């Protein structure tokens, strides 16, 4: 079951765009962070079921934040949402432990599908 969702992106408008792609009838609780370091701190505080993570951010990049979160919680479900569409970037995210990588600009159906997959994974883990 997914209850808490953390969105980590330095762009407020990107966070807003992502939130509008998430179904509103599921009663999710949303938490937000504006850089990778804040994202890691929020992760430890909130223990979200799913985290959406941008890569290109100030203070701490998404790669670093992803690495820190996975070190802290190896079962973290982190969906990387990025404009960086290089194959090497995607491979690096998966190697660091990302659950999946979604490319910007976001599409509602991709977010729905990602959440549905994450829900199945979390149910199997329970």
């Amino acid at each position, binding site marked *: 079951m997914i209850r808490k969702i953390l969105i980590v992106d330095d762009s407020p*408008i990107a966070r807003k765009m992502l939130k509008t792609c998430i179904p509103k009838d599921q009663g999710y609780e949303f938490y937000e962070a504006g850089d990778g370091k804040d994202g890691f701190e929020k992760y430890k505080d909130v223990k979200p079921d799913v985290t959406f993570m941008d890569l290109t*951010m100030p203070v701490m990049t998404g790669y670093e934040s992803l690495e820190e979160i996975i070190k802290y919680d190896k079962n973290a479900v982190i969906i990387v949402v990025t404009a960086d*569409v290089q194959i090497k*970037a995607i491979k690096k995210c998966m190697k660091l432990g990302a659950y999946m990588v979604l490319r*910007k600009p976001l599409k509602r159906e991709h977010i729905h599908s990602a959440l549905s997959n994450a829900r199945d994974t979390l149910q199997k883990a329970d």
Partner: protein
Amino acid sequence: MNIQTESMLTDEEIEIFQEIMNIAFGKSAADLADVIDTHVVLSVPYIRIMHVTALPDYFREHVKDYKNISIVEQKFWGRFKGDALLVFSAGAGKELVSMLQHEEKSGFESDPVDILERETLMEVGNILIGACVGKIAELLKDVITYTPPMIIMEKYSCDAIYDSQYNPDGTAIVLKTDFSFDNGNVSGFLFLVTSQESIRWLKDALRIFIEQYE
């Protein structure tokens, strides 16, 4: 942000455009990475919008650390139209040539270095400007055509952009990102100089773009 900027685009419009630029730079990096077969790391893009009359001073301030610069210039036409100027420090050409030589050594060995640098900067500029401006156009439902790239090599940075170069009613969109590579570092500025007419179109296009997320 100054008063002039506020009258051109609102804070929210700038944020939306910055996100679009982020996506566009991502496309540029991917296209460039395909050519040089390395991972391109981008910094967080920085954006400023100003009247074109403020551009020479802004430009001089931001390139003052570079004694000489090289500029790749390309004009583009669509609903969004203007000049794209990609500015590299003078050493960028050599750095890029050495990266490409690593990949395609045999093709470069007989060519003079200055020609190689010129051709390399033009090619890289063409890729970065085309991918970036092209992606903006795609996301904002515009169709754009381009002139071939032109290059100004090793220009003294203070003389590169002068006061009467552009229509004084124009608007400059200054975008900056640093590119770093697995095997070398190159940084550059991208300036888009456009018109008030294009800014009016841009405001509408940004509103239509964000409506799909409301």
